C-alpha cells in the first residue's frame, strides 16, 4: 500500500467532518468495546493468561533466529518450501514467480495484512493474473478499490448502502439492502472462485516452530477454502509470527478472538502443515511459506522489540479515542490505531509518518486492552523522543521543548517562572476564568476555551497550607 501517513492531520480533519463515516464509526465502536469487556469479565483468569502470552511471545522473539530455523527445518521436512524475503518487492517476486512457473491464472486470497504491506494484489494483476479477496470485508474493499481501515474488520467504515451499490455494479443483480441476503449474494459469487482458483494465498496468525505449521483463524471459513481447494497453497507471513508449540497457540487463541470481537473462539482454526499427504482426501499438491522481514528486524533487539509481540487483534484501535473518531484511513498505511502509530513509522520511516506517534491522547486504554501487554503509549513516547533527537518536528516545537527542559531542570528558576506564568494566565482568563485565544497555540483554542489557573502555583499554595 502506498504510504500516505504524512497527510494524517489533513486526513483526520476531513474524516471528522465526514458525516457518513462518523455514523458508521459510531455503530461499530460499542460492539467491539462492549463485546471484549463482557468476554474478559466472564473469563476468570485474564491477567494470568495475558502474562503467559506475553512471555510466550518474548521467548520466541529473544531466540528469533533459532525459532525461525527450527520452523524452516520442520516445514521443509513436511514437504513445504520455505522462502525468505527481505523486502516487500522480494516477497512479491517470489510469490508471483511461483504462480508464473505453475501456470496460475486465478488466485483466491484469505485476509493477510502482510500481503497488504507488500502490495501483493497489484503484483498479481501486473503479471496478468486474476486475484480475488474472499474475506467478505476484503472482497467489498477490492470492489471499492480501497485499502482496509481496520485489521480485523476491514470494511468497518462502510455502510450497507455503500456496500449495496458496490454489489449492484459487481454482480449485476437487483439491489439488496438486507444484510443476510447481501451476504448470501457474495457467498454465491465467491463460491465459484473458490472452486476454480489454481492458487490460494493465506496469511498465518502464527507459525509453529516444533511442527513446521502455519495457521489461519477465521469466522467465515474462507481461509479453509483457500488453503484446501486450489492445487497450490502459498502462505505469506512476518518473521515475528513464530511461536514454539501448539500449546503456545492454545494460550494465544484464548486471547485473540476475545480481544478482537468478544468471541470465546473463532469458528474456524486451521493448522496447516505441508502439502496434502499420500492418500489424503483433499488439500493442495504444493505448499510454500514466505517469511517476510520488510522492516521487522529494525525492531529486533532494540527498545521497541515488545511491539513484535503483537497478535493483530485490533483491540488497541477499537479502544482508541483517536481511531474511534477518525477511522483507519486517516493513518495513511496498512496498520491504523496505536499499533499502526508504532509500526508505520518504523516500517516506512519516521520522516514519512511524523504525526502518528503524536496521534494519541495518552489515555492508556490501548495498553490496558492489549492481550500481550505491549506498552503502546511508552513506545509512542520513544518515537517522539527520536523525532526530537532527529530534529523531525517543527522548530518552534523543538525550541519550546528544549526551553521547558532547561527550566524544568532548575528548580529555583522553575518556581519563579511558573509563578509569573500563573499570574499572567490568570489575568488572561479575565473575570470568567477562561482563555479564548493563546498566541501561537490558536489551533488548540479554535474550538474550545482553556480554563485559566487561579493565579498561584501549586508550590505556593502548598507552602501556605503547611504553614
Amino acid at each position, binding site marked *: 500500500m502506498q504510504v500516505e501517513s504524512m497527510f494524517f492531520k489533513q486526513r483526520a480533519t476531513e474524516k471528522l467532518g465526514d458525516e457518513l463515516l462518523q455514523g458508521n464509526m459510531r455503530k461499530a465502536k460499542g460492539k467491539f468495546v462492549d463485546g471484549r469487556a463482557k468476554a474478559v469479565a466472564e473469563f476468570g483468569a485474564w491477567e494470568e493468561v495475558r502474562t503467559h502470552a506475553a512471555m510466550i511471545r518474548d521467548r520466541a522473539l529473544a531466540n528469533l533466529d533459532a525459532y525461525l530455523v527450527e520452523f524452516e527445518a520442520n516445514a521443509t521436512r513436511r514437504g513445504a518450501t520455505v522462502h525468505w*524475503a527481505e523486502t516487500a518487492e522480494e516477497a512479491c517476486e517470489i510469490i508471483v514467480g511461483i504462480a508464473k512457473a505453475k501456470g496460475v491464472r486465478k488466485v483466491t486470497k484469505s485476509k493477510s495484512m502482510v500481503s497488504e504491506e507488500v502490495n501483493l494484489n497489484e503484483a498479481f494483476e501486473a503479471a496478468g493474473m486474476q486475484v480475488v479477496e474472499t474475506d467478505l470485508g476484503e472482497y467489498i474493499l477490492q470492489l471499492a478499490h480501497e485499502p482496509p481501515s481496520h485489521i480485523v474488520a476491514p470494511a468497518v467504515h462502510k455502510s450497507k448502502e455503500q456496500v449495496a451499490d458496490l454489489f449492484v455494479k459487481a454482480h449485476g443483480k437487483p439491489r439488496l439492502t438486507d444484510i443476510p441476503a447481501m451476504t448470501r449474494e457474495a457467498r454465491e459469487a465467491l463460491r465459484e472462485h473458490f472452486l476454480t482458483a489454481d492458487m490460494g494465498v493465506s496469511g498465518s496468525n502464527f507459525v509453529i516452530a516444533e511442527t513446521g505449521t502455519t495457521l489461519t483463524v477465521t469466522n467465515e471459513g474462507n481461509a479453509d477454502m483457500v488453503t484446501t481447494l486450489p492445487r497450490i497453497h502459498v502462505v505469506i507471513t512476518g518473521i515475528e509470527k513464530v511461536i514454539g508449540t501448539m500449546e503456545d497457540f492454545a494460550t494465544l487463541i484464548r486471547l485473540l478472538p476475545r480481544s478482537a470481537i468478544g468471541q470465546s473462539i473463532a469458528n474456524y482454526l*486451521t493448522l*496447516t502443515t505441508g502439502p496434502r499427504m499420500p492418500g489424503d482426501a483433499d488439500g493442495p499438491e504444493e505448499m510454500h511459506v514466505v517469511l517476510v522481514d520488510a522492516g521487522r528486524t529494525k525492531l529486533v533487539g532494540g527498545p521497541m522489540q515488545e511491539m513484535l509481540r503483537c497478535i493483530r487483534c485490533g483491540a488497541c484501535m477499537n479502544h482508541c479515542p483517536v481511531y474511534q473518531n477518525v477511522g483507519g484511513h486517516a493513518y495513511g498505511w496498512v496498520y491504523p490505531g496505536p499499533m499502526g502509530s508504532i509500526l508505520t513509522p518504523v516500517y516506512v520511516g519516521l520522516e514519512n509518518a511524523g504525526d502518528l506517534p503524536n496521534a494519541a491522547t495518552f489515555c492508556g486504554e490501548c495498553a490496558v486492552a492489549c492481550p500481550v501487554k505491549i506498552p503502546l503509549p511508552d513506545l509512542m513516547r520513544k518515537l517522539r523522543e527520536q523525532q526530537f533527537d532527529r530534529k523531525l518536528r517543527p522548530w518552534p516545537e523543538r525550541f519550546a521543548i528544549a526551553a521547558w527542559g532547561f527550566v524544568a531542570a532548575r528548580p529555583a528558576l522553575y518556581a519563579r517562572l511558573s509563578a509569573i506564568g500563573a499570574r499572567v494566565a490568570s489575568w488572561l482568563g479575565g473575570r470568567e476564568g477562561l482563555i479564548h485565544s493563546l498566541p501561537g497555540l490558536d489551533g488548540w483554542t479554535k474550538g474550545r476555551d482553556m480554563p485559566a489557573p487561579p493565579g498561584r502555583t501549586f508550590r505556593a499554595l502548598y507552602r501556605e497550607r503547611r504553614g
Partner: protein
Amino acid sequence: MGARENILRRIRAAQGRSGAAPTQAELAAARAQIARHEVGPQPPFAHAPDRLAQFRRECDRMGTTHAMVAAEGDIPREVARYLGAAGLERRVAGWAAFAGLDWAGAGVAYEARPATGDDRTGLTGCFCAVAETGTVLLLSAPQMPKVNALLPETHVCVVRADRILDTMEDSFARLREEAGEPPRAVFFVSGPSRTADIEQTIVIGAHGPYRVHVVIVA
C-alpha cells in the same frame, strides 16, 4: 540464500550474537524449551466438573445444535430426524466410516464420498472434541475429506462422548499420542460459519455451513 542469511544475521547482530545462523547449542536450547510442551494457565471453566454439560453449553453459545444417541446404530435415525425437523432433504454426502450404518432403513440417501459445491448436507466424524469451547477437531486423512464439513450448507458431525476432552491442550496431547505429528490439516470447528463484515451485523452462513449439528454417541 542471500535473504535468509541477511535476515538471520541482522537478528543475531541486533541481539548481540555474531554469525548468520544459530549455533548448535542455541538450537538445542530452543528445542529443549519447545520439547517441554509447557501448558499455560487456563480459565476455571476449562476443567468443568461435568465435561459433557460444558461441551453442550458451549455448543449452544456458538450456535451448534446437538443430540445424544445411545449407540452408533442410532445415528441414521437421529440424522433423519434432524434433517426432517429442519426441513432439509434427507440426502447426505458423508465419510466412508459411516457408510455401513442402516441409512436406507432411516430413509436417508447416504453417499460415501467427498462433498462438492452442490451437496446440501455433509457428514463427518471427528478426531476429538473440546468441551471448553464447544469445538470439534477434524484431521485430514484418507477417506476423511475436510470439504464435507465446509462446502455443504449443513454439517453433521458425529462425536463419541469418550472423545470429548477438556481443553485444546488436551487435544494436542492426544494428537501427539495417537498420530505423532499433526497431519496436513488440523481443523477446529466451533459452530456455523459467520461474518460481521457489513455494519458489524452478525450473519450466519458466510462461506461455510449455515448449520452445524453434533450427534454425540454415548
